[in-house]
């Protein structure tokens, strides 16, 4: 197709021009030509006027739907929560099957058959699952101070520990999300950090139930996660990344020494 300005302004008026005229997409240079054409052809002008009227009534007749209050089931907060629950399901049913988490030495829960693992092994699985669910999907935005303060006070009440999110900025990690998450062992707290080159790490914490109230730090390897888990003074911790990170062990040590001291 030949294209030059002359033709653009002088070519025959087509249906495409008429649509563009109605929809406001018409090239400014072509507008006078279309307007002259409409003035000279009353039938076409009537057609265009009817198209405009139809568009206007369609917009008017459907606008109430866009103004209607959004029903609860389309609430993004609820959908995100439902999605989280869905993602937890595999972890739950697969307890004895697929999560090849090698926690510490000795094969861990795999040897104990398909019952739910407990203690620090659960923390490793949960931390891994939470990281997978959130790290790829949470849209980065610094958590509101309210959310953070609520989480912190909840954990303090629950455990008697100081659990404000650790400052990892010296290593280039910035807190982007703080959330309460559900686990089979009860509610847990998750802090998500953004680091250099789009790396994301998750710090997961929850009160321990009966077992492993204190546990030494051990490396953990999930299906697509690596990290460290430990427990101190009745609080279990997991620091998880999607790929091996040189700094992860140092960060875990830093976090362990800063957090979990009794109040």
């Amino acid at each position, binding site marked *: 197709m030949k294209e030059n300005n002359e033709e653009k302004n002088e070519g025959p008026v087509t249906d495409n021009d008429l649509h563009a005229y109605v929809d406001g*997409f018409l090239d400014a240079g072509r507008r006078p030509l279309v307007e002259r054409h409409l003035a000279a052809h009353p039938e076409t002008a009537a057609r265009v006027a009817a198209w405009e009227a139809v568009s206007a009534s369609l917009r008017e007749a*459907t606008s109430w*739907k866009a103004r209607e209050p*959004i029903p609860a089931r389309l609430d*993004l907060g609820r*959908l995100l929560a439902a999605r989280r629950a869905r993602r937890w399901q595999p972890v739950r049913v697969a307890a004895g099957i697929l999560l090849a988490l090698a926690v510490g030495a000795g094969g861990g829960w795999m040897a104990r058959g398909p019952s739910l693992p407990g203690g620090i092994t659960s923390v490793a699985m949960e931390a891994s699952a939470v990281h997978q669910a959130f790290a790829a999907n949470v*849209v980065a935005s610094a958590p509101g101070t309210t959310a953070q303060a609520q989480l912190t006070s909840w954990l303090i009440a629950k455990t008697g520990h100081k659990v404000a999110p650790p400052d990892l900025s010296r290593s280039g990690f910035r807190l982007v999300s703080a959330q309460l998450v559900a686990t089979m062992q009860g509610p847990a707290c998750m802090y998500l950090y953004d680091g250099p080159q789009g790396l994301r790490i998750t710090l997961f914490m929850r009160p321990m139930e009966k077992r492993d109230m204190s546990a030494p730090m051990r490396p953990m390897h999930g299906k697509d996660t690596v990290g460290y888990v430990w427990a101190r003074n009745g609080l279990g911790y997991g620091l998880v990344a999607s790929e091996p990170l040189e700094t992860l062990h140092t960060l875990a040590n830093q976090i362990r020494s800063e957090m979990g001291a009794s109040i």
Partner: protein
Amino acid sequence: MSALATLEENIPSLRRYAWSLVRNANDADDLVQDCLLRALDRLDTVREEGQLRPWLFTIMHNLHVNRWRRAKIRAEVPAEDADAEISMPAPQPASTEMREVLRGLRGLPVDQRQVILLVAVEGFEYSEVAEMLGIPIGTVMSRLSRARDRLRDFVEGRTQPVLRRVK
């Protein structure tokens, strides 16, 4: 603005499009819900904020096509039925003209209905619509012509005794 906030901002227009496309409010919100869930799964794949809205409507379109195909296979129900329920809430100042244009809309084949809604109501550019629907831009334009002319006929003929239009 975060992608999540932009997503939320688009929910009203997704509901409007879904409701205009399918026949009842419940089915429409089902479609929106599926669309949002799918979008949440892949939100991180959207690089530019400006792409998010067309992307959402593309998801909606694909979901609608899949459902529509399944429904067509399941039962040989005519896909188009101009007499289908046209519900508008009571507080709506539903003028005759608006009712008629909705009736006309529902009488259009679904491919024409999509195009005219995406262009005239949702304000997408022709090239965006072509990409969303996976069709050449020429096809978008010809469907738009047919949709507009048919709606014009329908609305202008509304004072005459109502006859069901047969495709």
